[in-house]
């Protein structure tokens, strides 16, 4: 049982906070905590797994008890015997390098008998069909596979409370189905489950209630039935994603945008393989409509991101040509004329101010012009801020601003909406449309069904 008694929390650095939360979650309940980004849902669940106050610094008042123990009065280690957490970022939650040891890690830390750990691992691996993932290096797994291992390693431990912090953020349709099964299995075992999430439809079958948060407060509580009855528009109004479980490959854009030209970019002879391995893909010829928002869809691991890297000339070993009108672009030319907004935007921001970031992309530095671009992307007020100090969506817009400043005519996006709530997803979608209006070709790799529907003007399935 989890009890919040008038809990308030304020981080020393961050904006997000909690204000006077009182809440009781019974044993075996599956509770969804939802709300737009920055509403405090992550903070709320951190109070349960003990990261607040034992890891993140800040000012905590009120008390949180889990199974009768006051979280702030005990140690993180003791809490972790009862409470397990699956985090959002699959890249940073593994301590081990091989998957099998990672499954055992939690139990090992508690000094459980190795024979018992062995039985537990066998049970979990067989139940969830994870045998093909065993004994592999985590650096060789896809995002979805990593998230599966993260869930499984929690399942191996003898816990009563399981916490998930936006677990679906980096998953495709297939990955979400697997996650759904895992949660179902936990519910059967009568675990108490707490999920912070804004993609919610996959949780519908399991939740016993849902809490809607906004600016650090619980603004509304729904029973499972009330929540399931909400219409798509109502969900959107709450900042939630309403994508009904659907494979992105089957989505048809329905935003009424019409093509008005027939121009094409013709990509030919694109082949790529990692050294000494089977080719990832081999594309003799592909037609990409010019001046459109093109969605490239397909399952995780089909090589979509690698395709983008090859397209913008980042992979030296991949020789391909792109014909735009009469112009033929080889690798180097493509590198100079195509801009890619990476999934992890942090990697492509270098300077100490947003304005500077735009100006280094310009052929000739022109402050007026740069400010105009920032204005058009709602970034003018952040011109002097450090790019890394901005929110994820703002960083993405800075990258777009530098793309615009560089004057390139093709802009690629790699999963631009992973982990975004409805409001921010729509914002991205508007930006894509604005880019199209300036005559640029926009190509996105995504498995976000709602983004495809809202923004794309055509879809190319990728196999």
């Amino acid at each position, binding site marked *: 049982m989890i009890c919040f008694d008038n809990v308030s929390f304020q981080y020393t650095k961050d904006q997000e906070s909690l204000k006077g939360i009182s809440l009781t979650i019974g044993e075996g309940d599956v509770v969804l905590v939802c709300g737009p980004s920055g509403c405090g849902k992550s903070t709320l669940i951190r109070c349960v797994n003990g990261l607040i106050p034992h890891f993140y610094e800040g000012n905590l008042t009120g008390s949180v008890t889990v199974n009768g123990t006051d979280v702030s009065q005990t140690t993180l280690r003791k809490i972790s015997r009862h409470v397990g957490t699956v985090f959002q970022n699959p890249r*940073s939650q593994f301590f081990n390098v091989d998957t099998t040891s990672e499954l055992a890690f939690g139990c090992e830390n508690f000094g459980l008998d190795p024979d018992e750990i062995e039985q537990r691992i066998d049970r979990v691996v067989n139940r969830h069909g994870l045998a093909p993932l065993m004994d592999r290096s985590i650096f060789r797994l896809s995002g979805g596979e990593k998230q599966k291992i993260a869930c499984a390693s929690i399942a191996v431990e003898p816990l009563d409370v399981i916490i998930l912090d936006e677990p679906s953020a980096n998953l495709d349709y297939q990955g979400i189905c697997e996650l759904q099964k895992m949660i179902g299995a936990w519910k059967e075992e009568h675990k108490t489950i707490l999920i912070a999430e804004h993609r919610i439809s996959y949780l519908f079958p399991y939740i016993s209630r849902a809490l809607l948060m906004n600016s650090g407060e619980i603004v509304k509580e729904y029973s499972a039935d009330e929540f399931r009855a909400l219409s798509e528009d109502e969900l959107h109004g709450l900042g939630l994603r309403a994508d009904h479980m659907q494979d992105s490959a089957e989505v048809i854009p329905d935003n009424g945008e019409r093509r008005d030209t027939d121009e094409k970019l013709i990509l030919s002879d694109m082949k790529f393989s990692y050294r000494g391995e089977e080719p990832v893909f081999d594309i003799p010829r592909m037609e990409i409509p010019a001046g459109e928002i093109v969605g490239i869809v397909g399952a995780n691991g089909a090589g979509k991101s690698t395709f983008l*890297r090859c397209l913008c000339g980042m992979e030296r070993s991949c020789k391909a040509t792109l014909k735009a009108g009469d112009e033929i672009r080889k690798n180097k030319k493509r590198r100079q004329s195509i801009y890619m907004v990476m999934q992890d935007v942090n*990697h492509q921001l270098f300077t100490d101010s947003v304005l500077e970031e735009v100006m280094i992309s310009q052929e000739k530095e022109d402050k007026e012009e740069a400010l105009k671009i920032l204005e058009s992307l709602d970034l003018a007020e952040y011109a002097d801020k450090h790019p890394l100090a901005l929110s994820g969506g703002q960083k993405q817009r800075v990258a777009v601003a530098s793309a615009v400043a560089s004057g390139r005519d093709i802009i690629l996006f790699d999963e631009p909406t992973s982990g975004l709530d409805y409001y921010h997803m729509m914002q991205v979608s508007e930006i894509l449309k604005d880019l199209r209006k300036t005559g640029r070709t926009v190509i996105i790799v995504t498995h976000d069904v709602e983004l495809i529907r809202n923004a794309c003007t055509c879809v190319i399935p990728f196999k």
Partner: protein
Amino acid sequence: MEYRLDRNVHSLLDPRTKLLLLFTSSVFVVGNAGEKWMYVFYWILVYLPVLLLLAEKEWKAAAVAVAIYVGSFYAQMALQHDPTAWESALALMLYIITKILPTVILARYIVKTTKVSEFLAAMNRMHVTDKLTIPISVIFRFFPTVAEESRAINDAMRMRGIEMGAKKATEAVEYRMVPLIASCSIIGEELSAAAMTRGLDVGKKRSCIWKIRFRFPDLIIIVLCLTCFVWWGIGRFFI
């Protein structure tokens, strides 16, 4: 088919043996202790890492290692007669490669074949404090991450066309270092949070699913290492 965890999976050597071998190799191959007196052992220690690679079925890596070693060894021998300044500089480069390469291959072998969990348990049995073993295991875990991150940053710089455009050398360093450190620092924070919610703590007893014990190959290597030190001692103090 039913999955059964095989807890007997292990590499050829025990983690403790690997460390002893690394220690021996840095004393006698890199440090050159005993010099001519240790001639035979020197060559055993130089080629032993290659045998370990073969035991891991890393045929290609083994072949490349031998080729580089033999190549630079004979090249520096050939350059040693009446060298010009440049030739002697080149000879020194090659010489340093021949000194360091075997140990580097050994270190890479250890990192690749030792599980973090195994390493923690083995060190714990030798009563090495967590204050050293936890950071060391994080270093192993983090080298690939640093490499991954810096590759991504480098790619981004190339894509944005600012790798050459950086006006000054300082900018070239700044643009690489700042995102790298920022990104590693964030990953590190999340990694710590995840590890601590799974009960990792300092000075608490852990168990280990992997069966760690000395086996026959360990015996051979341990005897070899001890013989090295004894033989060196004889040469040093009695002859």
